[in-house]
């Protein structure tokens, strides 16, 4: 199987869907002539032309709303936010329009739009540039959210997102763009709402999403090598819809749970997963659920401090060992 980068996997997903459906367009800041701020859309303008690969001014509220409007007439826009932090100026368009229009129209309208871009935690760009809002998005009925951690998942999830008939957030991470992995050359999809057990284990379930999955996998190796603990790593891949069964099956197998995320703890994704497990599998638990998340503060700039603020493998190992 070809080994390609996460970036390349996303690009292939877009190219294949651009080929498959003439209503698919790509729109965002610097996506066309500049080949993307992170080069995810490199070469697409050359291949598909300016009608389908569209550069916008720095007007997130405007172009986001425009994309939502176009999707009402059957265009399938794949909108790029340069960072999630910049999507905040388009909050209204996403929450009041994308999330609510189908409902308020009694189902008369649907919005087949994809909103993609990277989180940026861990690159010391400070509080205004490091937001990871997947919890807000997932908190909002009407929106779907996926967070691919590997090139394989990035391509398969983005393709499913583009074919989906609802607004889907595909939440990437700048630090993952250069990661390499096996990605089939042929057409394949990863369904929205299907978690993936990235590592089998018997003693403890570590449940994570996005880049935190890689942190969890590193921690699992250390746990095995240095502590003889067999950790299973469950990659949620999709936050909403959520694969409840895979989560509960893992809990039934290991009876111990550690939740890991790069987001803040309060009202975070882990809080929902934790509630789900105690409510559906209370009797399966041998110990209270623990979690590791970002330290509960705006993202600090200072490089060594930001490393402390975000979960790292050692912190995950310590937390895993503390699960009763």
């Amino acid at each position, binding site marked *: 199987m070809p080994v390609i980068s996460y970036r390349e996997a996303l690009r292939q997903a877009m190219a294949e869907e651009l080929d498959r459906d003439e209503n698919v367009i790509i729109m965002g800041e*610097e996506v066309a*002539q*500049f080949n993307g701020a992170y080069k995810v859309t490199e070469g697409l303008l050359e291949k598909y032309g300016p009608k389908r690969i569209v550069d916008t*001014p720095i*007007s997130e509220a405007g172009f986001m709303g425009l994309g939502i409007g176009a999707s009402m007439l059957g265009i399938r826009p794949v909108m790029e936010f340069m960072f999630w932090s910049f999507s905040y100026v388009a909050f209204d368009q996403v929450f009041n329009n994308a999330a609510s229009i189908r409902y308020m129209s009694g189902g008369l309208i649907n919005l087949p739009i994809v909103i993609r871009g990277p989180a940026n935690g861990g690159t*010391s760009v*400070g509080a205004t*540039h490091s937001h990871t809002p997947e919890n807000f998005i997932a908190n909002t009925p009407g929106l779907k959210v996926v967070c691919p951690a590997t090139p394989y998942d990035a391509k398969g999830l983005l393709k499913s997102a583009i074919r989906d008939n609802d607004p889907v957030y595909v939440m990437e991470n700048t630090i993952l763009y250069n990661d390499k992995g096996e990605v089939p050359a042929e057409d394949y999809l990863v369904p929205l709402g299907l978690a993936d057990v990235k590592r089998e284990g018997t003693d403890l379930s570590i449940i994570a999403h996005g880049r935190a999955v890689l942190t969890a996998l590193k921690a699992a190796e250390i746990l095995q090598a240095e502590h003889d603990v067999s950790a299973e790593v469950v990659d949620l891949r999709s936050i909403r819809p959520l694969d409840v069964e895979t989560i509960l099956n893992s809990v039934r197998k290991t009876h111990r749970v550690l939740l890991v995320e790069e987001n803040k703890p309060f009202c975070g994704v882990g809080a929902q997963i934790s509630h789900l497990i105690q409510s559906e599998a209370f009797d399966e638990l041998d110990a209270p659920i623990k979690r590791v*998340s970002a330290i509960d503060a705006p993202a600090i700039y*200072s490089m060594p401090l930001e490393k402390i603020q975000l979960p790292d493998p050692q912190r995950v190992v310590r937390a895993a060992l503390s699960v009763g």
Partner: protein
Amino acid sequence: MSTKTATRAAAPKPELEPRAMAALAKHPANAGLTAADKLRLYRDMVRIRRFEERSVQVYQKGKIGGFLHLYIGQEAVAVGAVSLLGEHDHIITAYRDHGHALAVGMSMNECMAELAGKVTGCSKGKGGSMHFFAPDKKYWGGHGIVGGQIPLGAGLAYALKYKGLKGCCIAFMGDGAVNQGAVHEAYNLAALWNLPVIFVIENNKYSMGTSQERSSAGEPLAKRADGYDMAWDMGNGNILYEVREKIAAAMKRAHEESKPTLLEIFTYRYRGHSMSDPDQTYRDKQEIADYRENKDPITLFQKCLQAEGVLDDATLAKIDEEARAEAEASAKFADDSPFPQPEAILQDIYFEEDNRTDQSNVKGRMFFGDSV
């Protein structure tokens, strides 16, 4: 230019001759400048340039995180504007903020230390390159989200007016920022409520890799003020005297009539959008060379001061040497300074958590962590 009859000002003349400079020197905004004042303005620009050149080396050694947006080429705008600030005049800008910081009198040390994420930095290493602040110098940042600072600038002006202070706020933005909705909302509020704010578009022709023609409908950008019946003007940002002239006029309007102005100042950045993005495929090398060689604000002002007999060769060399030495020392200061302690992560989030006041009526738990 009256509010209602705002008309398109003459196109900027980037190649102003020394004679034109001489005329500008006599303009009331500049006529009162002493030789010492002029040397200080010159030195301020040189200090910014040397500081940023030195920061490039620190960045290349991997000691600065994230983004580093350089102001090199634009120095006359911040220095010219800041040189006019009076007791109740404030400024706010975007992420390309080092020049404004040094211009208001922040030290190279605290700025370089901030870039290096050190506890001795102006924001204790918490903000980084894009988020410098010095409220004691009436400098309200350093803002990372394009256009986000513009409503804040209107708000600072609102507060000045509310308090009955005769002052203004100069709110700087880039040419790309004019397409943010919040900017237009702020224009309207400022004009509607007669706020003493000066919106300054530092038009360096590009927003990242996008030229003005590819991002903005209608020119000049300042003309958008017409839609709000707000006064507007344009100026050549390579000519320090001209920047002062234009800012002085807008300040007068703010101070005396409590009215906003939208100024578009033409300038140029020599470097890539940021250090991590030095891509220059979107513009011609020749264009950059032309600005560097023929329109550089420091060189132009240097020539002007030499023609005025204010700057001799010895002083010129001394100013440059001192600026280099100061930049060098700031790099060492940053290097020698410690990083913040881990506890710092949870400090400076809420005022009432850091200093419980008598008014504070807060119960309950504020922060959450891995255990709860």
